[in-house]
């Protein structure tokens, strides 16, 4: 890892340790006063990215409108909102994947450790800000090669397998997949289960040793058990990287997010600590959404 300051160590209860009665977000009575959650941002949280009045349009259609946000390491930031509100677009703009869409146009700045991402080489930026997608999308190669591909230089086959063994193992360990695949690293990645594939994708994203990890609804294609495994993983990972997650699942956002940004029609309606957004939303829109009024 490339921190100068030691990473903030914070242990929140894992998803599995939650009390059996998970409180419905915004349920009547606003019983969000859950035990064991730390509300305040850790004073040690390091700001890695700053979104500064970012606007993104596809042709004439504005998808993201003047959004400003901080993204801090040591915290999970969840982007929530109804479909088509621009959360995925915002997420993809963080590592300039929006540029692959020909009609997309951007205004505003995104800073990564104080540097405007527009001035960085896209490939260099995408190694520092990696992404996991909605559908598990491992490459049609072996488990080992899926991770090793990220570690190798552009297009080169070197360094050799043995030299990469350690890094591949560490990435798989951080993604919590090592124990399950260590015996068959040469097997095709597409024969893993959906949950394992998604963790392989997380391992792949971690292998580049990024500063920010973007997750685009990483559990929406998975069963509840795999979802729980991945949620636990995300909570652990935020100590090492800044995590931004887009989710449709409000309970998931409630379970794992420290900060929540609620977007609606491209605008950032509310941004704040998860407890506050779910428990005492300031905007009416947010209140309606988190209590299941629309969306």
């Amino acid at each position: 890892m490339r921190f100068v300051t030691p990473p903030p160590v914070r242990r929140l209860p894992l998803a599995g340790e939650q009390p059996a009665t998970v409180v419905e977000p915004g349920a009547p009575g606003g019983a969000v006063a859950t035990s064991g959650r730390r509300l305040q941002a850790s004073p040690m949280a390091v700001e890695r990215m700053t979104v500064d009045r970012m606007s993104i349009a596809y042709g004439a259609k504005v998808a993201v409108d003047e959004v400003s946000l901080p993204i801090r390491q040591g915290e999970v930031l969840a982007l929530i909102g109804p479909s088509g509100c621009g959360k995925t677009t915002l997420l993809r703009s963080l590592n300039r994947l929006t540029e692959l869409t020909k009609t997309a146009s951007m205004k505003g700045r995104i800073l990564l450790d104080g540097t405007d991402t527009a001035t960085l080489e896209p490939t260099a930026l995408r190694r520092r800000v990696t992404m996991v997608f909605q559908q598990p999308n491992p490459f049609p190669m072996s488990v080992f090669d899926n991770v090793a591909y990220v570690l190798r230089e552009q297009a080169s086959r070197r360094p050799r397998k043995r030299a990469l063994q350690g890094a591949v193992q560490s990435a798989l360990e951080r993604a919590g997949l090592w124990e399950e695949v260590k015996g068959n690293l040469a097997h095709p990645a597409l024969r893993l289960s959906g949950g394992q594939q998604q963790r392989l994708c997380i391992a792949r994203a971690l292998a580049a040793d990024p500063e920010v990890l973007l997750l685009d609804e990483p559990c929406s294609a998975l069963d509840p058990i795999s979802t729980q495994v991945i949620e636990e993983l995300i909570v652990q990972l935020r100590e090492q990287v800044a995590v931004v997650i887009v989710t449709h699942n409000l309970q998931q956002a409630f379970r794992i997010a420290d900060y929540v940004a609620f977007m609606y029609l491209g605008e950032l309606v509310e941004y704040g600590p998860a407890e506050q957004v779910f428990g005492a939303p300031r905007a009416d829109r947010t209140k309606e959404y988190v209590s299941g009024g629309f969306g």
Partner: protein
Amino acid sequence: MSAMTAPPAQPASPPPAPRRSARDSSASWRLTDRLGLAFAWLLGIGFLVVTAAIVLYMMVQGLRYVRPELFVTSPSAGFTESETGGFLDPLLGTVIVAAMAMAIAFPLGLCIAVWLSEYGRPSLLARVTESTIEMLAGTPSIVFALFGTLLFEQGALAFFSRTNDGGVVYGRSFFAAASMLALIALPLVVANVREGLQAIPAHVREASYAVGKTKLTTTRRVLLPAARPSVVTGAMLGVGRVIGDTAVIVLLLGATLRFNPAGDVPGLSQLKGTGSTLTSFVYANAPTGEANQPTKAYAAAFVLLSMVLVLNFAVDLAVRRGRRWR
């Protein structure tokens, strides 16, 4: 099933029968669907019978006449079967021409397909290229052959064939034939590689870009390996077309059944000279051809057919092996 208690109202009702296949239940289909099914079967069996007839006929005829010494002797002039030799030169010629043509068509086709599928810019040029390739695919090979004779008779291309004492460029050689055959194989390579690349879902590309890989790296290390079955299929189909073509060979490789080198650089002189392939050997020895040695023609056709069949099996194998990552 046994654990479930049948509802008392219908004590005799049997457990639901397992779903029968669509064909078994075709009695319940509409008349037009049933007619369609019958028509499809008729056509399918019809084509199968025709194909089987050709292959079996050629196999029987070929096996009757094919003898080991045919593979190792060159064709020669003569009046009886025993004097006219075998088809060593045409066999080698087929291999040489196929290798040369694919050496041009495969890399070129691969690059064009990657460019069309992954880059496609400038888009106007891409569109023009696309329709050009389609046009090439639809052009009869005799047209390529005719164009080739015009092209390689130009003084500027004299290097690629024989020039006589008067300075006239002959324009027929392995180089000339292979380059025109490459144009025949090119659309097959392009179409198959392109199809294979486009069958890869967009999220695979995105996954690669999202970890900081360039387009070129993604293509080389992810997309082309994933599309390998299509790449191999394209190459094999190209080879099949090339070794089966006759018009280009007859017009551009010259009418000599034996190698007829031009110049005295070993290797190069053979390629600059004329020769034959199995197809032109069959053409010459067919009952209507000038050599008229039908038994030799049958034997050569048998060998040619076997080569094509082996190629088809190879394609099948490659496609199946390529699926092991799926």
